């Protein structure tokens, strides 16, 4: 049995109700092509891609339609064959506008075959594989969407000794990663081997929360023949175990310094979905054009784990899952803790859409925010060791300098503090606003000097 228990316990954590049963036992189903696909150029962290097709062009499945614009950026590919009907501004999940390519599928799904499969990747060489990962446009599929190529080519002064595969999926409701581990365990392990050879590391930890015993079993079977220090790290079920820095602490006991990256402590963390995408891109030559998204929530007629093309609108996803059985008052892209509320269903899926959640009125209580009672529960709950109450008060008073000196930029916006706050203070919202203000201020100071 190649399993270890988590070495360390999270500093702060919460135990929300999980509701994973809604979609946990539903197989991944491929969704038929919708009538229209709107592929956003802002799919990943960093600079949005630059569209390289124009209205009227005919594109093939997997053809590159967006060019990476800069080092931290990723290519975007056509999810199916069809005609480009528009290249226009469209809403993103955060409500801002970004360029998107609208494709009307021709129904043929003709592949472009632009990337030849690399069947024997062990002899292909590091640069070929890295180039392939970049060409396939792979970005982290856990949520932030950090371009994978950048993550897998750390600078020489940052030696990496541990690869962590993140299968924690600590967000309530979401089961996409769980299903991917169950149904594609062997491929995930292959993808993991590819990344392991790229990084030249021996130690691999596959971190899974103990509320997914089937996934743990499936992954155990997959790694049975592995050589080197490979093990499943069983994490206690608590939120936010899946957060990158928290996971590194739980599996290795190392702490990422303030403002630092996992590579500062010799770790690279990749989501299980990303790992599968790496395998698919290298071995099959498929660019990242589809992903598993959990469409869930009590109002949804048939919660499912849908394998949908990137660019599918939320309305089409919902229709595929049978629509709503009762009114939903809140639509969240992602999970309930860190997801982003949506104001319509026109938004389309991206490489980072792990779930689409519909919540009915009884699960969206409206609170009146009250002054802080200084109980300190948020300080205990904060996994980043911050002082949420103090930060929130400072931001409410408009004192962003003080918030900066209280390390607001270390906040991972996990929502533990707001979840636990008895005064129902909108803590995370304050921090999101404060972080954007502090970042803006730093940028302005930089341009001045």
């Amino acid at each position, binding site marked *: 049995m190649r399993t270890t228990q988590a070495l360390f316990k999270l500093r702060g954590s919460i135990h929300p109700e999980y509701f994973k049963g809604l979609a946990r036992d539903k197989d991944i189903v491929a969704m038929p092509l919708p009538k229209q696909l709107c592929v956003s150029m802002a799919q990943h962290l960093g600079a949005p891609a630059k569209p390289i097709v124009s209205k009227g062009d005919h594109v093939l499945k997997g053809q590159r339609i967006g060019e990476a614009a800069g080092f931290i950026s990723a290519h975007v590919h056509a999810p199916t064959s069809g005609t480009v009907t528009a290249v226009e501004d469209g*809403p993103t999940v*955060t*409500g*801002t*506008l970004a360029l998107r390519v609208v494709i009307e599928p021709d129904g043929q799904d003709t592949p472009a075959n632009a990337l030849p499969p690399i069947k024997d990747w062990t002899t292909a060489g590091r640069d070929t594989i890295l180039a392939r990962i970049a060409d396939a446009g792979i970005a982290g599929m856990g949520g932030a969407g950090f371009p994978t190529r950048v993550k897998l080519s750390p600078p020489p002064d940052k030696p990496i000794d541990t690869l962590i595969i993140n299968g924690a999926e600590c967000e309530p409701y979401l089961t996409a990663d769980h299903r991917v581990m169950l149904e594609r365990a062997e491929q995930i392990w292959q993808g993991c081997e590819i990344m392991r050879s790229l990084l030249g590391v021996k130690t691999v930890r596959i971190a899974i929360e103990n509320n997914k015993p089937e996934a743990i079993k499936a992954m155990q079977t997959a790694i049975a023949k592995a050589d080197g220090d490979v093990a499943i790290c069983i994490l206690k079920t608590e939120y936010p175990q899946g957060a990158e820095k928290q996971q590194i602490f739980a599996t290795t006991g190392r702490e990422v310094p303030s403002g630092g990256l996992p590579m500062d402590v010799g770790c690279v963390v990749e989501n299980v979905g990303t790992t599968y995408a790496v395998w698919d891109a290298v071995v099959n030559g498929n660019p990242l054009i589809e992903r598993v998204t959990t469409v869930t929530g009590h109002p949804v007629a048939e919660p499912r784990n849908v394998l949908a093309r990137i660019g599918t609108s939320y309305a089409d996803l919902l229709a595929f899952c049978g629509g709503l059985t009762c009114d939903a008052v809140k639509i969240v892209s992602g999970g309930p803790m860190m997801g*982003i*509320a*949506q*104001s*319509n269903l026109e938004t389309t899926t991206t490489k980072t859409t792990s779930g689409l959640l519909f919540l009915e009125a009884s699960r969206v209580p*409206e609170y009146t*925010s009250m002054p802080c009672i200084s109980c300190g529960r948020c300080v205990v709950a904060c996994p980043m060791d911050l002082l949420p109450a103090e930060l929130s008060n400072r931001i409410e008073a*408009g004192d962003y300098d003080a918030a900066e000196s209280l390390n607001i930029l270390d906040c991972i916006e996990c929502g533990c503090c707001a979840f636990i706050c008895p005064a129902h203070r*909108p803590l995370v*919202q*304050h921090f*999101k*606003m404060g972080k*954007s*203000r502090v970042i803006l201020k730093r940028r302005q100071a930089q341009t001045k000097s």
Partner: protein
Amino acid sequence: MDWMPVLITSGTIGGVGLACGSALALAAKFLSVPEDPKIAELEGILPGVNCGGCGFAGCADYAKAIASGAASVDLCAPGGPDVLKKLAAATGQEATATEKQVAMVLCQGNEHRAVHKHIYNGVADCNAAAMVAGGDMLCTYGCLGYGSCAFVCPVGAIAIKENLATIHPELCIGCKACIKACPRGIIRMVPESRSVHVLCSSKDKGPVAKKACQVACIGCKMCVKLGGEAFEMDGFLAKRNYAIPATSDTAIEKCPGKCIVKIGASEATTQTAPADGAPSGSHA
């Protein structure tokens, strides 16, 4: 009673006090750093609102900067021509008075006129509201009405009425704090003497803008035809050219979007200096 301990104690304490006192007196005489008397004089002239509109950390800091020659005397917006004249006289610099500029919210979309796209129940701050699905209004350019500008206004010149920020021109001191606070960038400085304004910032095409708000500019160019050079077009949005006075009211009456309004008395026909700064939205 034995008076000796009392005398010794009071003598010691008195002696220590005397020694320290004389040391301080000597230090004040010999170690003092002479401060430019100009600074105190200039600070007395400045209005003392500490609004930060000049770019310095309050009136005292600005006075110091003028005295050292690091700043010109014409940066104090709240002071107006009076303060400028006095500062110029005190420093010997020459300065020509420009017309007072006041802030104006270029939007009329209150809760009855503008269409909401979702219900927002988070932090009552425009910057926070704009981060949730791009704000709760269908118009992506208009006032959100959560009062971030009113919160930073040092003189309380901004009122939020029916989810719309309105700035009182008589109270506004022109410090531009509200312009920095507004996430939509729809507050602009306008010359005080001008009373005709285009109160819309939507750059959307006519049908889109109209769907989002009853008082939107639809880009019909009617005002440019009727009002001449007093109005100009920026894509699908009409803008006021404040250098040219708008003397006729026909453009106001004929505007199909009802987004041109007159606040106060009619404009005189004299020319005025163009409103400073870039058009609204540029700082975002």
